[in-house]
């Protein structure tokens, strides 16, 4: 098990290390100014400088991202159920949803902050707006593509519409829901950062905009690295949730008579 983990992640880590080395060599070779591109050593020093204040910012951004993602899940699953259950609703609402995704969030975020104030809520809302679309699309698809024969089987036993939904359709859509959620999770932190950019009293977005006005590109790089790390963490969290919700997808082997 540990051996598998090592062979799985070592290549990626080695590649990352090589990139950092190349970056360092390039900065030295071309004698780049730190306000244009700081070297990895300088970024590390910047990290040591700010490590006292960073956790607070991370906590704010994570809270917004998780809250927004939670809202997106509830909203997304609910809308997906409506879209899948009622064809007329699907015909009216689905195109609007697609169009709504073409409104740039960078335009919407300031408006939402103006409407809802400077607290955590408007940021969570921006995150939710970014995250709910992949969940809706993917979950709707999962509900619509449930095996017709399974539905017929349930009906043949005398199941009501609600029973068919509960025993067949919802479980069928769980893998699709998580596929959408995994995409959303990668956007969630980014969404929170964009929202904070517009106006916040704490958070990684605020940290970046402050660093930029102070020409501390090294600190911007620190923030970027932190955002990447936090996003990976969130992604892993969703993956764990998926495992917990779909144990049958991860059960291996012990097929007694034949291998499939």
């Amino acid at each position, binding site marked *: 098990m540990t051996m598998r983990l090592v062979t799985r992640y070592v290549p990626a880590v080695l590649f990352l290390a090589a990139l950092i080395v190349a970056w360092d060599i390039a900065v030295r070779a071309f004698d780049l100014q730190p306000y244009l591109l700081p070297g990895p050593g300088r970024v590390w020093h910047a990290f040591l400088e700010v490590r006292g204040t960073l956790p607070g910012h991370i906590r704010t951004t994570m809270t917004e991202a998780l809250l927004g993602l939670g809202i997106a899940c509830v909203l997304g699953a609910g809308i997906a159920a409506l879209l899948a259950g009622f064809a007329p609703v699907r015909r009216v609402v689905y195109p609007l949803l697609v169009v709504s995704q073409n409104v740039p969030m960078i335009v919407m975020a300031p408006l939402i902050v103006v409407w809802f104030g400077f607290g955590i809520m408007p940021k969570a809302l921006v995150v939710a707006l970014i995250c709910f679309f992949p969940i809706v699309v993917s979950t709707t698809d999962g509900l619509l593509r449930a*095996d017709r024969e399974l539905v017929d089987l349930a009906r043949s*036993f005398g199941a009501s519409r609600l029973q068919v939904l509960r025993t067949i359709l919802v479980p069928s859509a769980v893998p699709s829901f998580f596929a959408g959620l995994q995409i959303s999770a990668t956007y969630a932190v980014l969404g929170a950062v964009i929202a904070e950019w517009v106006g916040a009293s704490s958070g990684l977005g605020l940290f970046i905009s402050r660093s930029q006005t102070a020409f501390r590109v090294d600190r911007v790089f620190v923030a970027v690295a932190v955002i990447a790390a936090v996003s990976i963490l969130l992604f892993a969290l969703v993956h764990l949730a998926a495992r917990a919700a779909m144990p049958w997808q991860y059960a291996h082997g012990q097929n007694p008579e034949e291998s499939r």
Partner: protein
Amino acid sequence: MPEPVLNPAIRVDGVSLTFGGATPVHALDDVSLRVEPGQFVSLVGPSGCGKSTLLKLLAGLVLPDAGSASIEGIPVAGRPGSAAFMPQRDLLLPWRRTIANAALGAELAGVSREQARSEARSLLPSFGLEGFERAWPAQLSGGMRQRLALLRTFLVPRDVMLLDEPFGALDAITRREMQQWLQAVWTEHQRSVLLVTHDVDEALVLSDVVFVMSPRPGRIVHRVDVPFARPRSVADTTTAEFASLKSELLDALEAAGRPVRRVEVSERTTRPA
């Protein structure tokens, strides 16, 4: 044979059915048959002759254009839930473990969850699934999946069972084992069964009565009463009487239209109409 005052377990009267669409398919043409309570009846016919459609109709999933069908005297049109239906594919829910899959039909038919699952648990040994209570369907072999699907059908509290090629996907040896085993289970529980198959041997080993269906549009073209004493074994399939009944059935199938392959071939590559 029970007294005729009882309602027949299954009664089909002059049922015709055409599926609409760009190229309409005439699936059933004036089909009539009866299954008496406690009887084991088979319906043989070539692939795509409408056998599966007839079962779906009896399961209340499709409506006839003409004629009527009833189970235990109650019309089935648009009223699913009167019989225990087992479709061709095992259709186990991947997200339910063995016990929960076995209990699915009973639960949906109104049995309480606890009761359905405890009945399922107590029948696991006789369905050869002991020790696999906690397995997911993907961890079971083809034969076990099929037995689990049968157990699910058995646990539905209905006296009539509709079985659609329950062993079609299995290899010849496993299939034979399953037939022996189904015969034993049926003898013990005495339900009325309508079995659809394209395997003449299977029909003769298991049934009291065999109906032959023609290629599409499906019609009943022949009826054979099977006289052999039960329990029937593999040895019975080599007797002269068995051979003569078998050739009678094959002749009827051939006369009905398309030539029938006499070798055992799995014809389940396409889904039923």
